[in-house]
């Protein structure tokens, strides 16, 4: 729980610098794994492909019996993967240049330090335990299968045949059995007859791996698979042949899965805060522009009306003045006429 919170904070913290940066770029913070967490070291130079680990796993986890018994080695003729009834499988890899014979490799959950499945689960059904195991809680799982999309190692499997209660099935590194004291080492490790598997603290396993490399020069490639892949895993591999030849991808990079999506998730709060302001701003600008254009319209109309009125008033005044002048002239004319007539009458009277 705390770890998830931490991952969330990590995502949010990386937010500021992620926009416009490569999603692959590692953030300034790094999670080196829980100190003292346990893991398993697999040595491909020791594995003989006997499938005892498969049988051991099947037994301690109470998984259904497979169609072919575990001592039937013909199943190694085809490439297999884990499924909802099998937490671990061993594959045989033939014709590897320089190997001088077949090489076997066991596959199961790698128990990443920062698991893609846990980071991608929208109900937090996965837990990275401080002891190293990645476990799954069936009480909240919705069955969306995004963990299966996210896992770079194709590990989580699904009970497709279950109509209503399908579970995600995967290796637990026998965490339930070990924490309850039923086992001291995982079922597969206990069943291995050639010590191709070693269970221990991850830090110790890294030392053991380097020790073997030093003790047997030329036997191993100088690479511990899982030390840095996808940010590091609790399951580690050493081999004498390239890992890509025994089904382990070498192109996964060293970026932990949560970092791949932290940048995109970081934009969420940014959008949530910036978008409403931006959108209201755009809306307000339009309102304002509408208002201004309306005001301008009103002003233009007012001006036009005022001008027209002025012109009309001037015209009227002129007409009035003209009329007044006319009137005055007419009066003057009439007065003059009357005076003239009066004068004329006077003259006639005088006569």
């Amino acid at each position, binding site marked *: 729980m705390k770890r*998830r919170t931490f991952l*969330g904070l990590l*995502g949010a913290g990386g937010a500021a610098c992620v926009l416009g940066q*490569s*999603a*692959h770029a590692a953030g300034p913070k790094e999670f080196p794994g829980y100190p003292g967490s346990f893991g398993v070291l697999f040595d491909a130079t020791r594995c003989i492909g006997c499938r005892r680990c498969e049988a051991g796993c099947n037994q301690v986890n109470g998984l259904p019996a497979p169609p072919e018994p575990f001592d039937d080695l013909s199943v190694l003729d085809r490439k297999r993967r884990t*499924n*909802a009834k099998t937490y671990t499988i061993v594959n045989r890899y033939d014709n590897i240049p320089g190997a001088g014979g077949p090489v076997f490799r066991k596959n199961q959950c790698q128990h990443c330090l920062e698991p*893609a499945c*846990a*980071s*991608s*689960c*929208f*109900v*937090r*059904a996965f837990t990275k335990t401080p002891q190293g195991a990645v476990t799954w809680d069936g009480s*909240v*799982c*919705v*069955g*969306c*299968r*995004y963990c*299966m*999309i*996210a896992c*770079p190692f194709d590990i*989580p*499997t*699904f*009970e*497709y*045949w*279950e*109509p*209503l*209660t*399908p579970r995600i099935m995967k290796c637990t590194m026998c965490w339930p059995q070990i924490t309850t004291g039923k086992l001291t080492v995982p079922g597969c490790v206990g069943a291995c007859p050639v010590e191709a598997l070693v269970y221990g603290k991850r830090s110790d396993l890294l030392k053991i791996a380097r020790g073997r490399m030093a003790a047997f020069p030329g036997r191993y490639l100088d690479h511990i698979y899982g030390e840095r892949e996808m940010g590091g895993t609790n399951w580690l591999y050493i081999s004498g042949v390239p890992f890509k030849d025994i089904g382990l*991808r070498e192109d*996964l*990079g060293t970026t932990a899965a*949560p970092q*791949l*999506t932290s*940048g*995109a*998730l970081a*934009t*969420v709060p940014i*959008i*949530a805060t910036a*978008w*409403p302001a931006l*959108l209201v701003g*755009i*809306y307000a600008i*339009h*309102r304002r522009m*509408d208002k201004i254009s309306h005001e301008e319209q009103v002003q233009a109309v007012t001006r036009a009306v005022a001008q027209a009125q002025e012109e009309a008033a001037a015209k009227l005044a002129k007409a009035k003045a003209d009329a007044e002048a006319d009137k005055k002239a007419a009066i003057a004319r009439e007065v003059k006429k009357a005076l003239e007539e009066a004068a004329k009458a006077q003259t006639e009277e005088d006569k």
Partner: protein
Amino acid sequence: MSTDTQKSWLTPFNVIVGVILLVGGFITILRFTKGLAGVTNLTDNNPWGIWISFDLLCGVALAAGGFTTSAACYIFGLKRFHSAVRPAILTAFLGYSLVVFALHYDVGRPWRLPYPFFVQSGTTSVLFEVGLCVFLYLITLFVEWVPSALEWLGFKKPRNVIIRMTLALTIFGVVLSTMHQSSLGALYLIAPSKLHPLWYSMFLPLFFFVSAIAAGLSMVIFEGTLSHHYLHDKMDKVYLSEHEGVTFGFAKGAAVVLVVYFFIKIVGITLDNNWQYLFTGYGAWFLFELLGFVALPAFLYALAVREHNATLVRWAAVLTVLGIILNRFNVSLVAFNWQLPPAERYFPSWMEIAVSVFIVTVGLLVFRFIATRMPIFYEHPAFKEHVPHEGEEEEAPEFVEHELKPHPQTLGH
């Protein structure tokens, strides 16, 4: 009456729809008795099939018309698109409802779909963000759509309350859409080792968001064309008079968005320096998508606007919609798990396809049921906001009649 109904019942449309519904019902029973294995080709290597690619990814992208149209009208002030808002909101609301409906088939325990919000939240998951935004946006779309129903039922007061919230709802819708449209692309950011480099990019969220806008605009044009064909008698003069403006306005917008989309895709290739992949088989497929379904419709849209050719706009819209579907299929299926040997790749079973067809059919039926009854393509006479344009007459009374008269083709009536 009875002979009349008998006749109308046996139309080819009803027969086809009936068969689809029957088959859909049958597969639904199979899904919930035999599990996903009984009806799908999903495997542990291919956990997501077409119910995610089509029903979820395409469904959400093609329902983007809701937020683009309402944003254009209410936020960007393009008021002449007003009559296009209601059909777009209805399409979006139904689209999102069907997305959620379809998820009930796909997830293992559908009744737990609310768990991420109410029981235990995985906030580091992109899927959590998608789920939360889709959940909230579905509610938003419902509230945006509900005035149509309230007008139909004659509830004036609650209708007016919601109408007053239009701007807030629109902004909420745009914010949520920005987030989850892009987050659908961000879902695949966690799997760089499984998605082909030509489709994987840190810009996947941006690609999904921008292309969703083009999809939304094109779907409004496309849906308008279909509605014109089948629901013409439900449209009022305002809708019909604005329709051409909407068609060409949206075409212009889509052309610009597609051009932007084209160039940011190029930017994506350039930044990751993935040019060498263009000369592979996947490269040819990528170019087919980018040139045939992004560049070509962009050009056709631009040409159609210039020539004022509405038919060409519609063809460009169809091409864009197909292009979005192709893109979502490419990201989630074709280019996903590209490194697996052919025998381990996924191809949908006929039953998966049938369920998707079934869901689209249900959507069409509900759309028609609502559009033939509620004020979608016309303004309810009692709730008119539009001042009729000059020279236009009030045409309200004739629609009262439509409202009460069931559409002859409506199934079940």
